[in-house]
């Protein structure tokens, strides 16, 4: 990628899956990394703009990948702005269609794309390449998670389980309290919510949470919330990432 901020965010999300990342700014540099053989490269993610810039280089990149005779050639992914723009591209790549995933890159989407690409079945039976299950189990580590349940026992059990995996857990007994916790800016990575609860159902609560995030992001785009939105990523403002909601 040629865009440092995109590269930085993508790297963050990929590393969350326990995958190591290197960033280069064009296909030629990418090719020298792959062909140097110092480290095995399993996956290559190319930003759409970089790919489109020079179709000759892209085409020979694909040809070179197919020529790799040692080990398994890396899987190629394109980071597209929209599905339609990526479709026109697939036609020109000479039958070796890269997998496409959408920007901005998020861990959950990446995991899903990886599963498709690596041939992981729906029951998780892994074929030629094993996605290390350890990294998925370690996903809660260090994450701040909100659990919402009006049942004390369920709350305590869920909290115990997540704490065991290293998460930083906060409990809430009602949706109203939960919405207070989830008003941006907040530090939660995910929340677990019982769908059926007395005062408000899970879908309505999720809608409210998304509305809050949407409003906050609009404020960021209009430049009104820059101070609140500053993260430890110091080179600019980022849209507030939606919290992952598990029903």
């Amino acid at each position, binding site marked *: 990628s040629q865009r440092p901020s995109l590269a930085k965010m993508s790297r963050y999300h990929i590393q969350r899956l326990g995958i190591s990342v290197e960033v280069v700014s064009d296909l030629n540099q990418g090719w020298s990394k792959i062909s140097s053989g110092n480290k095995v490269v399993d996956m290559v993610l190319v930003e759409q703009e970089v790919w489109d810039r020079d179709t000759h280089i892209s085409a020979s990149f694909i040809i070179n990948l197919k020529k790799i005779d040692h080990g398994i050639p890396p899987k190629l992914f394109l980071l597209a702005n929209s599905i339609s723009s990526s479709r026109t591209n697939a036609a020109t790549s000479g039958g070796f269609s890269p997998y496409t995933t959408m920007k901005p890159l998020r861990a959950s989407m990446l995991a899903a794309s990886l599963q498709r690409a690596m041939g992981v079945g729906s029951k998780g039976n892994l074929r030629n390449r094993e996605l290390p299950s350890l990294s998925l189990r370690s996903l809660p580590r260090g994450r701040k998670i909100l659990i919402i349940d009006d049942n004390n*026992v369920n709350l305590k059990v869920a909290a*115990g389980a997540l704490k065991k995996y290293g998460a930083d857990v906060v409990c809430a007994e009602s949706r109203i309290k939960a919405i207070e916790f989830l008003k941006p800016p907040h530090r939660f990575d995910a929340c677990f919510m019982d769908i059926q609860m007395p005062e408000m159902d899970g879908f309505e609560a999720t809608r409210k949470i998304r509305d809050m995030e949407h409003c906050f992001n609009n404020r960021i785009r209009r430049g009104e919330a820059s101070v609140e939105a500053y993260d430890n990523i110091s080179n600019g403002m980022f849209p507030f990432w939606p919290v992952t909601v598990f029903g």
Partner: protein
Amino acid sequence: MQMLQGYLDEQFIQLEELQDDENPNFVEEIVTLFFNDSARLLQNIEQTLVSGPIDFAKLDNYMHQFKGSSSSIGAKRVKNGCTRFKDYYMAGNAEGCIRTFLQVKREHAILRTKLEAYFQLARQAGPSVIPRGQVR
């Protein structure tokens, strides 16, 4: 533990696995919480059953809570009793309701006694001697 066989399911074992040095009394704490909460819920349910025409919405709400927490601690027989009870109140069958409710109440009481004995034994035997995987 022989005495708990059939009363608890896999979920209880999961809870035992969450217990460690940082949370040495996790299981007993959850079980205590469960019995306090569920005793109250059972009283509420009993009230709805005996006071005039049965308010099924209220009943369903209490039962949802009760079944949920029974499930969370792995109380297999109590949970199954709840399912049968629900079948009767969904069918509006008052006689069946009362009968199955009394069964749930009985199962709940039996489980309470057994678990109290279980934790008593565990305490006497000393820490980290809760037998794992034997409760089926």
